[in-house]
């Protein structure tokens, strides 16, 4: 059975999509973590729950409505945060709870929880279709190209907004771009780990990698490696032992984080860590 799983085409799709999502979450998540916006992914995911419920009720493919609702609500929330000077954590709390509230009301109106809703809440990577895989790979490619093209501006405005502004970086536009990319990344990742565990992929591999990497690029590569390992190991182990993939993936990421803390406590990581 152990080797047999590599012959299934659903497993190929799951692993390919999973690796793409792992890469995407690491890169976009690192910008969020360094901006002290770790839970923003969680907030977008919860607002996408409202979008999923809307799609299911209206008979539209739920991920499309999730993309629309979560990106629009994240951009509006960012605008409100800037305009009315609300703190980052408070704006996250507003976005998070309003998404769930809208979702629950719509679900209530349309007859209660269904199996579909649960697959979005907890992920269903083994069920991704060929079309889903193509969509995931395309969005990953587009976002990575945008990040490569705007690398300096993204890094600089994350490092110090004021200095970036003085150097002529359009910081406000870059901030909205990051929110937009986070919205796409979150909804794309829902199929892998579900609404409830998305922030784990944004945050855990990155906080672990920050303890190892010296420079930014090195940190991104380390984070991607941890994330890819967690996703692939999580998918395979969960299939072999017939347990939930989302939970297993996140537990692998937490395992690497815990080992890193152990190594650090034993004084085996260099001074900067």
């Amino acid at each position, binding site marked *: 059975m152990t080797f047999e799983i590599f012959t299934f085409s659903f497993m190929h799709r799951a692993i390919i999509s999973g690796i793409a999502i792992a890469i995407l979450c690491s890169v976009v998540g690192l910008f969020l973590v*360094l901006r*002290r916006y770790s839970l923003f992914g969680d907030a977008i995911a919860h607002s996408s729950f409202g979008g999923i419920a809307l799609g299911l009720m209206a008979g539209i493919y739920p991920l499309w409505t999730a993309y629309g609702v979560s990106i629009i609500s994240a951009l509006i929330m960012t605008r409100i945060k800037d305009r009315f000077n609300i703190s980052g954590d408070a704006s996250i709390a507003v976005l998070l709870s309003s998404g769930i509230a809208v979702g629950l009301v719509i679900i209530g109106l349309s007859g209660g929880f269904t199996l579909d809703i649960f697959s979005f809440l907890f992920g269903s990577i083994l069920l991704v279709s060929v079309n889903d895989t193509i969509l995931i790979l395309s969005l990953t490619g587009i976002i990575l190209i945008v990040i490569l093209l705007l690398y*300096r501006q993204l*890094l*600089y405005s994350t*490092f*110090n907004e*004021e*200095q*970036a*502004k*003085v*150097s*002529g970086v359009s910081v406000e536009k870059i901030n909205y771009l990051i929110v937009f990319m986070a919205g796409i990344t979150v909804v794309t990742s829902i199929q892998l780990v579900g609404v409830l565990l998305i922030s784990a992929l944004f945050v855990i591999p990155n906080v672990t*990698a*920050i303890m190892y*990497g*010296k*420079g*930014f690029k*090195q*940190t991104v590569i380390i984070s991607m490696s941890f994330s890819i390992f967690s996703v692939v190991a999580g998918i395979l182990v969960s299939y072999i032992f017939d347990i939930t993939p989302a939970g297993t993936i996140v537990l692998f990421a937490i395992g690497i984080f815990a080992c890193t803390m152990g190594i650090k406590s034993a004084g085996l990581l260099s*001074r*900067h860590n």
Partner: protein
Amino acid sequence: MLKVVEIDHLTIEYPDVKAIDDVSFTVNQGDFLGIIGPNGAGKSTLFASMLNLNTKYKGTIKFFGTDIRKSKNYLKEIGYVPQKPIFEKNFPATVNDVVKMGLQKESDENKIDEILQQLWIHELSERRIGELSGGQQQRVFIAKALVNNPKVLILDEPVTGIDQQSIDLFYSILKELNSKQNITIIWSSHDLDAVNKLANHVACLNRTLFFHGESDDFFENDELVKQYSEASMQEHMHHH
């Protein structure tokens, strides 16, 4: 003489106080201007407007003859070193990464090595920014400010919280940039002795412009220095 900065009747008002009140002065190419003034005198507020970080002001600010409200291109010619650069302590960026952020054209990467050597931080290029001392970090931020060959360097009390040895090195670097590379320097400081030694022009700011002119005219006029010191002392007492 080419006029680099022309500030004309600049007034910046907050709801309860005028932070800058009708200030006008000019900075010429090659000037080394020391802006002195007590805490709360409006030095950082003045810089924020000059750097287009604050656009709510009355009056005009021109760089190289152009009103900064009309074009932001002047920012490419400016290197800015803040009072204390704020960044996440664990930010995974090396010295090289930080200096590169200031670089506007990728093709100029050789310039990074050159500047790191000039500022004696070449050996630190692969170290993380957060693990350096305050003085070393300040030199990294000067390197970042210099990497685009700016015509003007603006420094906001750049030696706050730095050891004396690093301060001395820092001052000798500024002197060299001004005298050998003809970079115009606009520098705010609390340190009257340092301003006396380095700057060739002085602007004395305490919301209004108290004095602006040649450095010698200020420091050789005991009455002016006394007035300034008394004003500073009053402000100091007021703050405590």
